[in-house]
């Protein structure tokens, strides 16, 4: 435990207040991430990014691409497309995939970064869409996905772990079911990356989207898409790539095909440094600590009269995100009071996941979501619980 304390104490001092909204964006960032951003900005960015005719290089993007490839155990760094985040990755995968006039399956636990592009395609009559439900913890039964498949199902889109209940899905089994029917699988790993050992080869995933600014401890504006070798997408952006400049059309070679425009190099430097931090610390170590924080949160909240946990089952695998509501206050009010009366940041509402709430008992107002990070202390959890205790039963009607 003392080693753990040493590691967490490396976090830079947080400003006044307690930050428990790490499922949105992690804070604070490890020192190496801050240093990487500063270093990236200390010299002309173009000089740090020499792209040749082959994509092998030592520039920020190449290093970051290789770091992501290592993180998810991709066979080759050219299977990694760098993007501006999970939303961009998912849009590239969904709008660029060859799924026109076919059937697509998704689930009720998805974030709007999946729901909206799919409904855009549905409303444009470009795809047919089935949305599979989930249980009260946000778990999607692979058999329900199998039952929803039709002869022309071409793609299954599912999150590795919901940004609301954080229940971990059975991705390997879903990929097995999909591939039996010659169907591809796109996984949204925005919450999972950095908290689960992801092995795209073992899972047999076709595409996997992630972002740098959550549990990879990078900064917003950088993400990636794993795109299995042999799978091709229609690029969404056409433009300069820093290589093959004489071609009047977008190069067909990866990574240039999908990475047009001036890159967010400080963002990719931060993502690479964040991945380095995660791998040096160890995903198992990070997860163990965050599981302990989750357990402390859950047990503490369960002991408070007037609190109802939502979508949580201690016997199931959840990432460190917990949802609840209070009998006496709307979720939005709870978030407001925590922020303004106690200086504690959480997230309240529907968390950009509009379909899951009917399944977990939080429709229509959503929930209060608490999400610690590796750097959260147990004292901060106790302070949060103390605030909730004060809030329960404090009302006077006038």
């Amino acid at each position, binding site marked *: 435990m003392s080693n753990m304390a040493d590691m967490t104490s490396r976090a830079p001092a947080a400003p006044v207040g307690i930050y428990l909204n790490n499922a949105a964006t992690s804070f604070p960032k490890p020192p190496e991430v801050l240093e990487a951003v500063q270093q990236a900005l200390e010299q002309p960015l173009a000089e740090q990014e020499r792209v040749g005719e082959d994509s092998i290089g030592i520039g920020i993007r190449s290093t970051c691409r290789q770091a992501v490839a290592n993180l998810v155990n991709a066979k080759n760094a050219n299977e990694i497309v760098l993007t501006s985040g999970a939303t961009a990755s998912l849009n590239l995968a969904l709008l660029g995939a060859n799924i026109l006039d076919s059937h697509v399956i998704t689930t009720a636990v998805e974030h709007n970064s999946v729901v909206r592009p799919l409904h855009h395609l549905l409303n444009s009559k470009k795809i047919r869409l089935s949305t599979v439900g989930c249980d009260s913890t946000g778990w999607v039964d692979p058999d329900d996905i199998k039952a929803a498949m039709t002869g022309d199902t071409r793609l299954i889109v599912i999150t590795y772990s919901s940004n609301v209940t954080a229940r971990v899905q059975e991705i390997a089994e879903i990929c097995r079911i999909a591939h039996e029917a010659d169907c591809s699988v796109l996984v949204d790993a925005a919450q999972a990356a950095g908290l689960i050992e992801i092995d795209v080869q073992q899972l047999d995933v076709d595409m996997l989207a992630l972002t740098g600014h959550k549990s990879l401890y990078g900064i917003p504006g950088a993400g990636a898409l794993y795109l299995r070798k042999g799978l091709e997408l229609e690029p969404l952006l056409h433009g300069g790539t820093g290589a093959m400049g004489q071609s009047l059309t977008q190069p067909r070679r990866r990574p240039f095909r999908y990475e047009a425009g001036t890159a967010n190099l400080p963002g990719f430097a931060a993502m690479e440094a964040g991945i380095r931090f995660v791998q040096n610390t160890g995903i198992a170590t990070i997860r163990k600590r965050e599981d302990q924080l989750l357990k402390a949160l859950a047990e503490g909240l369960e002991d408070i009269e007037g609190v109802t946990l939502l979508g949580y089952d201690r016997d199931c695998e959840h990432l460190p995100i917990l949802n609840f509501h209070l009998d006496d206050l709307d979720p939005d009010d709870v978030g*407001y*009071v925590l922020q*303004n*009366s106690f200086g504690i940041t959480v997230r309240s509402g529907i968390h950009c996941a509009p379909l899951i709430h009917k399944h977990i008992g939080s429709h229509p107002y959503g929930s209060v979501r608490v999400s610690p990070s590796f750097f959260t202390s147990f004292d901060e959890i106790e302070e949060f619980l103390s*605030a909730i205790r*004060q*809030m329960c039963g404090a*009302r006077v*009607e*006038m």
Partner: protein
Amino acid sequence: MKIVAVREVEDCFDNTVSRDVVFDQPTDLEFIVSLGSLGRLRYYHNLARPFWRLQVEDLFSLKGIQRNNVARLVFKKGHYAESIEMLVDAVNRFSREHQPVPQKLAEELS
């Protein structure tokens, strides 16, 4: 007391809109209690910094932390003008009348 600014606030809900209403001075108990004439007022006194919430049926809610000079207005789409007008009237009325908190209530909340 007067309203000096109304700021836009991002939110997630489709049928309501949020704005932060900025007052020229901190909201004290007297002012909060005066807002109760508009609708149902709840006051959470047992907190480090008391929270209050006013619900005006079918129109808007207003919530804040006592001693802050900002309160969050949440209104139904298309009802901004009506909501803010009602609120401005209440603020002006308070400024004119400046009713002290009834002794019994002040004792109960102290």
